[in-house]
């Protein structure tokens, strides 16, 4: 058993938005070049405190995401380190060409937090529910793409990317996540975290689906099936070696993501497997569907994003 894995699925006492705002405030206080950018969602992500304490380092751009990308590019051109936040679908679907050209193609230094991703957008519903952001970001050359699974990871990744150059995208939920990691855990780019180890199947998950994967592994364990669980927080670059190692070891892979199976984690894993080590694969995720309103737990059921769905997929693979 790997030590860092949550055993009780307890919900953290720190919300992801608080983790973002506090970490960024701390980073910005240390480095006057860090500028937080918001598009009228400051109060949704709790960056008000940055504005209160260091007003020159928080710019609320108003409801203009496309312009915010360009403002960030201009800040980056002059050596500033812009951290942009908006809901995931606005950061990606809405302002994609701006992010692609003014950020990626121009090779500028932009840090982007896409919040309220996937079903965690809850009552905002289909218009606000990004099941596509990881896919879009993966298409930008050299962009580094993460999905944070808890607040320890989110804080770590924010600190990490603040000192690295290039386009870094971090996907997250806003509210409290299930705690996966202990304080002090580290997260490398291009690596996955091994959370459980078992020889019968491998579950590769990201974001809110990591907790579901752990639950699934426990259910499987109780039924005599030993599953490996990997938190693939680094969606791009992805940890090829780890995927190949466990594909060979277990011969069956299930991916689980709060995102369209096209373009996101499932696709990324499928690409690695088909090129390097083809083994049977099942992808848990959204399939030819748009979002809708509802509570996260309800939407997980609707889109088949539960531990039960993961268990079924593992069983299906093992019975082949």
């Amino acid at each position, binding site marked *: 058993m790997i030590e860092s894995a949550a055993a009780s699925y307890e919900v953290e006492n720190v919300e992801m938005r608080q983790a973002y705002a506090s970490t960024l405030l701390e980073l910005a206080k240390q480095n006057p070049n860090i*500028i937080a950018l918001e598009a009228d969602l400051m109060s949704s992500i709790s960056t008000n405190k940055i504005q209160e304490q260091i007003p*020159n380092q928080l*710019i609320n*751009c*108003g409801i*203009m995401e*496309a*312009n915010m*990308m*360009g*403002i*960030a*590019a*201009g*800040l*980056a*051109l*002059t*050596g*500033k380190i812009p951290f942009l936040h908006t809901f995931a679908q606005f950061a990606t679907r809405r302002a994609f*060409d*701006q992010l692609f*050209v*003014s950020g990626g*193609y*121009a*090779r500028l230094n932009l840090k982007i937090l896409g919040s309220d991703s996937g079903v965690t957008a809850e009552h905002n519903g289909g218009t606000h529910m990004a099941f596509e952001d990881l896919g879009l970001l993966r298409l930008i050359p050299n962009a580094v793409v993460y999905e944070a699974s808890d607040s320890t990871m989110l804080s770590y990744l924010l600190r990490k990317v603040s000192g690295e150059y290039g386009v870094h995208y971090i996907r997250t939920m806003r509210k409290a996540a299930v705690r996966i990691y202990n304080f002090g855990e580290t997260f490398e780019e291009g690596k996955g975290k091994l959370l459980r180890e078992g020889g019968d199947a491998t579950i590769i998950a990201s974001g809110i689906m990591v907790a579901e994967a752990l639950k699934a592994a426990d259910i499987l364990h109780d039924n005599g099936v030993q599953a490996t669980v990997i938190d693939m927080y680094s969606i791009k670059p992805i940890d090829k070696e780890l995927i190949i190692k466990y594909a060979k070891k277990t011969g069956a892979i299930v991916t689980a993501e709060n995102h369209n199976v096209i373009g996101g984690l499932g696709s990324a894993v499928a690409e690695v497997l088909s090129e390097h080590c083809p083994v049977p694969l099942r992808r848990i995720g959204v399939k030819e569907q748009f979002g809708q309103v509802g509570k996260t737990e309800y939407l997980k059921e609707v889109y088949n994003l539960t531990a039960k769905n993961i268990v079924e997929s593992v069983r299906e693979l093992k019975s082949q």
Partner: protein
Amino acid sequence: MSHAISEIEQLRDEIRLKTLKELYHLGFGHYGGSLSIVETLAVLYGGVMKIDPANPRWEDRDYFILSKGHGGPAYYAALALKGFFPEEVLYTLNQNGTSLPSHPDRNLTPGVDMTTGSLGQGISAAVGVALSHKLSGNSNRTYCIVGDGELNEGQCWEAFQFAAHHKLNHLSVFVDDNKKQLDGLTKDIIDPIDFAEKFKAFGFYTLKVDGSSIQEIYDAIKLGKTQNEKPVAIILDTIKGQGVPYLETKAANHHIRPNAEDEAAILEAIAELERRMERTVTG
């Protein structure tokens, strides 16, 4: 701002000549919208901007962003003439592996401050640069040329609202009001009605000038520098294909692949500019 107008006028002729030669050598390209910004480039690079061609990324420089990226050929001519790179490089425009792509790329061309070409985006970056300098208390100025057709893009108006709100008085936006976009006259496609009124309403200190007059552009920039509270908009009354009478009257002059008649006229314009420059040098 102490340069003699006559010197800037000479640079204007040189930029126009090199732009024509560069495009003629390539065999096709964005003639119309390159020629209409020649005067403005001459004033900026010949008399106004703080630059160091030996150190293109000098921190204290003024920034220039060509938001209407398809005017790249004229921009490149200005940069080459100021010594950012050798003039021969102009004849690699759009060739395989070139450092001069159709639309400017900050990672390829010395002196290019921002990658542009996807319309509407350069102005946001320019506003970001101006904001950055304001936040840092620097005195660097930021100049940006947008196209009249480009102002169809909503993002430009987002950027203008932002610039006015943040009182970015070290930002000057030039509108190349050449009255045409790719598919025809701007008034027939999306009628701009009155750019000056719009900019005023958006909170800019707004001036309207003859975009073919070095003196008027120069004076407008000088006047713009007196502003403490507002960003500056200079509406340039220009003609697409400006400075080459044949191209000025050609209807579809956004992107030209010259036929025999065009070719003769372009060569004549080149010859005329060369004669004029010879007169200036010898006279």
